[in-house]
């Protein structure tokens, strides 16, 4: 359990997944990838059981944004991996982007 601040980065303790917090909630939450708690970027990887996602669509995909059902918490996947992301046991879903015209 820990506080996630906007801008904070975290990585999966087992697979390659890395995320950055875009929006967060004020209370402590449990952020997991493949069921294993994610760790800080300088943390050591562990040999642990890790639940691989059922299908490629549920894996953490680079560049996708993930939100909880209340749309209060948002993560950006900065490196893809094999697990799927969850907060307090609730699977996160891909946020659909509203495309803006290119301005530069």
């Amino acid at each position, binding site marked *: 359990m820990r506080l996630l601040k906007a*801008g904070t*980065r975290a990585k999966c303790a087992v697979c390659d997944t890395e995320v*950055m917090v*875009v929006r967060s909630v004020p209370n402590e939450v449990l952020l997991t990838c493949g069921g294993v708690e994610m760790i800080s*970027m300088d943390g050591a990887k562990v040999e642990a059981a890790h639940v691989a996602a059922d299908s490629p669509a549920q894996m953490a995909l*680079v*560049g*996708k944004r993930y939100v909880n059902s209340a749309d209060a918490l948002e993560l*950006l996947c*900065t*490196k*893809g991996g094999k697990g799927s992301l969850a907060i307090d046991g609730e699977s996160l879903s891909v946020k659909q*982007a*509203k*495309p*803006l*015209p*290119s*301005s*530069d």
Partner: protein
Amino acid sequence: MNLVMALEMAAECHAQRIAVTSGDVHLTYGQLLSAARAGGEVIRAAGVKYLGVLDINSPAVPIALFASAYAGVPYVPLNYRLTVPELEEQLERIAPALLLSDEPLLAPLSLPAGIEVVRRAEFLRLSLQSAEASGSAAASEALSAPGEAHDSAIQLFTSGTTGRPKAAVLRHQNLMSYVLGTVEFGSAQESDAILVSVPPYHIAGISAILSSTYAGRRMVQLPNFDAAGWLQLCRAEQITNAFVVPTMLSRIVDHLEQAGGGTSAAVPSLRAIAYGGGKMPLAVIEQAMKYFPGVDFTNAYGLTETSSTICLLGPQDHRSGFESQDPQIRRRLASVGKPVPTVELQVRGEDGAVLGPGQSGEIYVRGEQVAGEYLEQGSVLNAEGWFATRDRGQVDGFGYVYLEGRADDVIVRGGENISPGEIEDVLLGHPAVCDVAVVAVPDRQWGEGVGAVVVLKEHAQATDAELQEWVKQRLRSSRVPSAIRYVEQLPYNEMGKVLRRVLKQQFTDPTT
């Protein structure tokens, strides 16, 4: 959060994709990442506070932007069109610094103490040799950038059209908030290419690198803009996207017209043109839409202090404005559109009260990308985080934002605020007038009066009385210019902004 995140993600996802094309030089995203890391080592070894970059668009520019983030020092692109004393003064302000530059820009400068030079060719050699050694895939071991979200990433000297240039500070979180808020990661196709013709020292030149990298779009550099060269490069490199300032679009349109125009511009690959950086004359955008009928036009309004774009007028609004007979919709072509989703915008009166639709005042913005900070003054955001843009404007009943010029350019005549823009628009409608700028002139009775500097069309003639009558019939009598001067051309800076300071001075100085 750090700028390099955009590059690391792009290199991770499409290492083999071309990131930068500059003449015959091509760099993939994998090579750009390796080069930026190696370039970061070069900067770090110099033990300096800043990386100054005095260069035209070259492959060294995007490498240096990310390299300075790896070195943890702010990137300071300098305006190579400034005079020698102006450049030397800015170099003094950033010493001790490493200066990336080359001839002919370097030769006339006497470098102040604390400025160490690395020439472009040498910087490219040092950063690219590692890119080759590590292979095109981003194989070099993960070197992390030291900068935290709150650290300064870029320092840009403002254009200083009203006074001494200020050093605007942009932090990693400001720039990355802009990119994350407006660009979808990897949204470009491998065949997409953007033509970068804005100079590297302009905020649009910086956001072009960051946004293109995050979108995975190939950047094609045009070091020195001219209309023929721009069109030629569009065709040769199969350009799909471009960003131009109004002066550039105006020259492109003139070029097409002189080339016997009437037909389309014959750049079949081109899908989108974005423009910004100054006021776009209505006639120019209308002509451009005729020459590029299938192209999506986007007007982007932003400031250095807001990490680039804060409002957008998109392609659909351009088309409906262009085709509509309804004046309410037609005038949208003169609008800068609506705020981007991550930016809040308000119009406020002189007393700070928030104004309603159709009321003119100063534009305030708020959001993560809004830096609103200068090195000398610190943050200029108010207690609630709002930034006063010094731009005057209003929002219509549909939420579209209309700009009316800089707050500093407002003429205060007998206590009444007059925006030069409305008078300029009316005078531009006169058949003899080719270009015009309206500025405040000293007035014994009113404090300030309305002065107009007019450029007449070739062989056209107009008298003071005729132009005064033209304005009087269309606006209130207080808007009628009391003084009119005729000149061959108006003084513009290279980004297409009229140098009003110079014009004001000419009105008060009897020798000119």
